[in-house]
């Protein structure tokens, strides 16, 4: 970079700051974020999906868990055919005779719930350990980070696989496995950020004021570590959803009675060679749209919130 280039960008920054000085930080964040139309689209899709998941019982044409209304006679109907009950199965039915639209929305509900739920729990655990590690330093730090290093040197799928093999199937067990897989990412990220922030003057002045350790950690250090947390959080939720689907596909994780999107795809895999594509294709598309939307938003958040954040 030449001296002139630097001067130019300096000038730009100055101008930009003058301009942005009129706005609140949140408004600036919002306008930065909205510069990417794809990200906005992703965000809207996510909102839609979440609403769909929350209000699933009100929106679905049938209840896929109601064993009395699900009949094997309806199984593997092609998209658009009428079921015994008279309802049109717009996306067909699966092997057990469930309407795909309903099954997918319920599946989405489980996938999202497990993904977001595990993300939040992992974030809380990761923040606690990461902050403690950064603040305590010394042996505690070395021990925690060694654990994190070792865990992260193995692929998430393998760790989750081992855990689920040990624990068995079920929503709670899947949740535990996903939390264990994710916490280390949060812990490492927050420790890194906290270490940088800790050396800043405002922490030193807080220490000089004689504030308690807890207060410094949670009231001063934590709020300044939030931006990278949000970015890692979004990416991790997408990752968790994808991982849960994969585990369910492998026959681990969610039980057959509460099919997540992954399990629905897995069920449809049996029929793929006979050309009954819809059972696998549509839940997969739903999964894809969800994950892509989250990733688009996450990508944009990373650019907006912290351009220097390393993956």
């Amino acid at each position, binding site marked *: 970079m*030449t*001296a*002139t*280039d*630097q*001067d130019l960008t300096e*000038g*730009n920054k100055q101008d*930009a700051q003058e301009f942005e000085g009129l706005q609140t930080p949140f408004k600036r964040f919002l306008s930065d974020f909205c510069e990417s139309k794809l990200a906005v689209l992703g965000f809207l899709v996510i909102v839609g999906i979440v609403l769909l998941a929350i209000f699933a019982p009100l929106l679905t044409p049938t209840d896929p868990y109601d064993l009395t209304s699900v009949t094997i006679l309806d199984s593997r109907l092609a998209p658009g055919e009428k079921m015994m009950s008279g309802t049109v199965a717009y996306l067909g039915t699966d092997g057990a005779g469930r309407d795909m639209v309903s099954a997918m929305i319920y599946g989405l509900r489980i996938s999202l719930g497990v993904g977001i739920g595990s993300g939040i729990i992992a974030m809380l655990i990761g923040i606690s350990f990461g902050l403690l590690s950064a603040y305590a330093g010394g042996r505690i730090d070395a021990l925690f980070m060694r654990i994190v290093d070792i865990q992260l040197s193995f692929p998430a799928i393998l760790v989750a696989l081992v855990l689920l093999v040990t624990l068995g199937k079920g929503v709670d067990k899947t949740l535990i496995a996903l939390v264990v897989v994710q916490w280390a990412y949060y812990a490492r990220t927050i420790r890194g950020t906290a270490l940088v922030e800790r050396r800043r003057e405002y922490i030193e002045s807080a220490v000089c004021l004689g504030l308690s350790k807890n207060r410094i950690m949670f009231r001063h250090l934590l709020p300044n570590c939030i931006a990278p947390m949000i970015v890692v959080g979004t990416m991790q939720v997408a990752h968790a959803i994808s991982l849960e689907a994969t585990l369910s596909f492998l026959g681990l994780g969610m039980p057959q009675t509460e099919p997540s999107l992954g399990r629905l795809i897995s069920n449809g895999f049996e029929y793929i060679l006979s050309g009954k594509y819809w059972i696998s294709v549509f839940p997969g598309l739903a999964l894809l749209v969800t994950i892509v939307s989250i990733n688009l938003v996450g990508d944009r958040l990373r650019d907006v919130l912290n351009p220097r954040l390393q993956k």
Partner: protein
Amino acid sequence: MTQKPTLDVRDLRTYFFTKGGVAKAVDGITFSIAPGKVLGLVGESGSGKTVTGFSILGLVDQPGRVVGGEILYRGEDLNKVSAERMRELRGVNISMIFQDPMMTLNPVLRIDTQMIEAIRAHEKVSKEIARQRARDALGQVGIASPDERLRAYPHQFSGGMRQRVAIAIALLNKPDLIVADEPTTALDVTIQGQILYEVQKLCSQTGTALIWITHDLSVVAGLADQICVMYAGKIVESGEVNAVLDNPMHPYTHGLITSVPSKNKRGAPLSQIPGMAPSLLSLPKGCAFAPRCKWSNSNCQEQPDIRLAPQNRRLLCHNPIEYNNDNIRQETS
């Protein structure tokens, strides 16, 4: 001016098209340089001197672009030649030495690779001959045991040594013109002296024309034949180096000179130029220096024209400093 100039730059304009607007980094500058001569291009950072250097070599990066003027190298307009012709000229006829020696050599390639490729990009010679020439070039710039040095990586060299290597690379193909962009700024004073001495020697021996870009007037005083003072993309004063430095006519040149500490003025307070260099995106109307100039008046609201002064000097000012016999400016009230 009997010799045909090696390089003749006429009304060169290089603009940067940024989000914040058009920055006229180089805005209509004219100068020329004869074989074997040294031209000192002086200015603060951001005055456009580096961009001038890059414009000559056709290396201005996006969003910058040369938008006008002529760069005549031996009569050939470098703004109009093809990219391939420009590449042929670079490194052979015109070469460049960069400011920061720590950054100019590729860290993952050995010195010999980086030198040999510079020769073989232009001439079909065997690797052995190229290596021989690379070795000679290293010896030429005063690097001991060049054979061993050739096999080294850049990080094994000190800053001064790296700059010598960079200079050796610039000299490899015996160019007619070298653009040196503050090549000694990042170095220790002693090494700076050695390098200055060697470059000067090489240029006078080979008849290479040298454009020495710097913000250091003392370097220019000792090295250059001609001087161009740049301010906010324009050459505000140019001429023979002693004439300009002894009797600066442009207030900016005057300010630069008086802000350099020297033993003749010891004890006297250093004067400084008030204010800051303006942002290229928001230049004042008229003379860009006017807001910082203590002699500015209403005339300065208009862009001054180039004026010719005695001793072949050129000047861009409405109120040039004029000298009487005492070399003291007549303060006009």
